[in-house]
């Protein structure tokens, strides 16, 4: 009996920690709704932004800008990430080039976003002369998402059983035929969850886009990838810190709430796909 009290104490401490973590998520949502729920109306979502009269405008440009960035990042980094994952799982042997590539991926994942922003500014904006633009932002954010997509894709492809490949080779298929007829169809859903989660994270990133292309002073929508743009996290940031209007912070919370909803929606889709893979697929 004496031994069991500290035992239970420790186990409850762990329970409490896990509960606390989850309640953080709930708290974030509830506080955002308290702070910004009241400004969300249909016209807030669909009207264009007015700098002077912020009550009369909406965040349409920010939503469109974020959507373009999210989609652009996936279009650019998903093929590259999937290709790298295919190389790592299907082609390479356990040798030094493979170890080197894996080391580079892990370290790339650890580079702070503001440093990637510096690189984007020096290389994409000035070096390649993209200018401050959607294109520069998409390219910069793609460097951040690349390691995440590779990680998810490697995991998905590795979970395709070895015997699938062996059977295909035994029938005389080449490696590429095996990959695109057998391995990819079996593992693609898992790779896609990685792409969706990366898209959500990219849309929430703020520091890099401050540096390479977002702007607050936009009258219309961007017409091409070389235009500057407004995005939800940037809109939130500027309104929260640099706008004199007394209600600015409520509006900041409003667009933060929209951003969170988008992020949650995308994450839920990814989690749903993953859950389906695990319950339906019996290999």
């Amino acid at each position, binding site marked *: 009996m004496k031994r069991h009290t500290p035992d239970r104490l420790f186990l409850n401490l762990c329970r409490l920690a896990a509960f606390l973590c989850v309640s953080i998520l709930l708290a974030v949502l509830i506080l955002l709704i308290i702070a910004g729920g009241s400004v969300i109306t249909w016209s807030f979502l669909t009207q264009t932004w007015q700098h002077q009269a912020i009550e009369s405008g909406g965040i349409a440009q920010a939503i469109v800008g974020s959507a373009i960035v999210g989609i652009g990042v996936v279009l650019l980094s998903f093929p590259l990430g999937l290709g*790298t994952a295919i190389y790592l799982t299907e082609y*390479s042997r356990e040798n030094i080039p493979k170890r080197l590539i894996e080391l580079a991926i892990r370290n*790339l994942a650890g580079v702070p976003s503001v440093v990637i922003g510096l690189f984007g500014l020096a*290389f994409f904006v000035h070096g390649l002369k993209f200018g401050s633009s959607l294109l520069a932002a998409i390219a910069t954010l793609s460097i951040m998402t690349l390691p995440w997509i590779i990680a998810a894709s490697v995991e998905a492809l590795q979970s395709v059983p070895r015997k699938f490949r062996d059977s295909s080779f035994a029938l005389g298929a080449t490696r590429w035929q095996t990959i695109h007829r057998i391995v990819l169809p079996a593992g693609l859903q898992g790779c896609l969850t990685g792409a969706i989660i990366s898209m959500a994270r990219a849309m929430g990133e703020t520091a890099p886009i401050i540096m390479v292309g977002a702007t607050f002073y936009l009258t219309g929508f961007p017409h091409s990838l070389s235009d500057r743009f407004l995005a939800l996290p940037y809109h939130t*940031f500027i309104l929260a810190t640099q706008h004199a209007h007394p209600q600015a912070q409520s509006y900041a919370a409003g667009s933060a709430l929209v951003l969170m909803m988008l992020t949650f929606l995308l994450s839920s889709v990814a989690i749903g796909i993953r859950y389906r893979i695990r319950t339906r697929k019996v290999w």
Partner: protein
Amino acid sequence: MRRFQSRLIDGSMSVVFAFVAVLTVILLLGIFLFLVFNAVRALQTIPLQDILLSANWNPVSYTKPVWGILALALGTLIIVLLSLLVAFPLGLLTAIYLSEIASVRSREILKPLIEMIAGVPSVVLGLLGLLFLAPILANIFQLSNGLNALTASMLVAIVTMPSIASLCEDSLSELPRGLRDASFALGAGRASTIIHVLLPAAKSGIAGAAMLGLGRAIGETMIVLMVAGNSLSVPRSLFDAVRPMTATIAIEIKEAVTGSMHWSALFVIGLILFLLTLGLNIIVDILVRRRIHT
């Protein structure tokens, strides 16, 4: 003929994939080289001790610009250590709960939820800090405003906690089942099995998780930009306003003239951040063979 054709496609595809994969190495090297390339002007003109050992940062002064990053680095250090002090125990205990205590069902629910915390954009946390946490802490500690190192650390802890929890959980659940069985067979309870058997066995992974958390905290930008108080003076307490290195880059890079000394000095800060996180990542790599954590 058909066979020849499929061989040809097969061969060229393997080259394509190898090329794509090497791109990650090129990117990492490219980031490093571009940072060095842009930092070189400042590194050549300003003596290194004037950058690293001076606490005065005023790159736009008309009379005598100074480039000491010590105050900025101290701001980073305080926030990183303080946030780890919160996030590490919380992450570790959560990992223990997930791996050793929770039922399969609650684990299935909790793991995605914790992953979603990692997906909360840091600008959102910064905003909530401005609106709620800062006023509350200012009230509790009788401060004029709550924009200081302590407030920022609490929020940075939320950002680092999920990756710490996830790496700790991986290293706990990789431990062989036999360890637990042997400990139970000797009459140890669940808590003492965890504390005296499993945690020591997983210690390198857990240390790696702490290092990973450090790296995340060093790189966090938006939170410290919004709630750390944005002060260039040397912090003397946890309640002082600070401006960490990441925030300095984000604030000043838009004002710096491309290629100027100011611009170059900001790239020096970027280079330092890059090397710090690279070093931490390599330590994690040595401590634990891992998958890539996002």
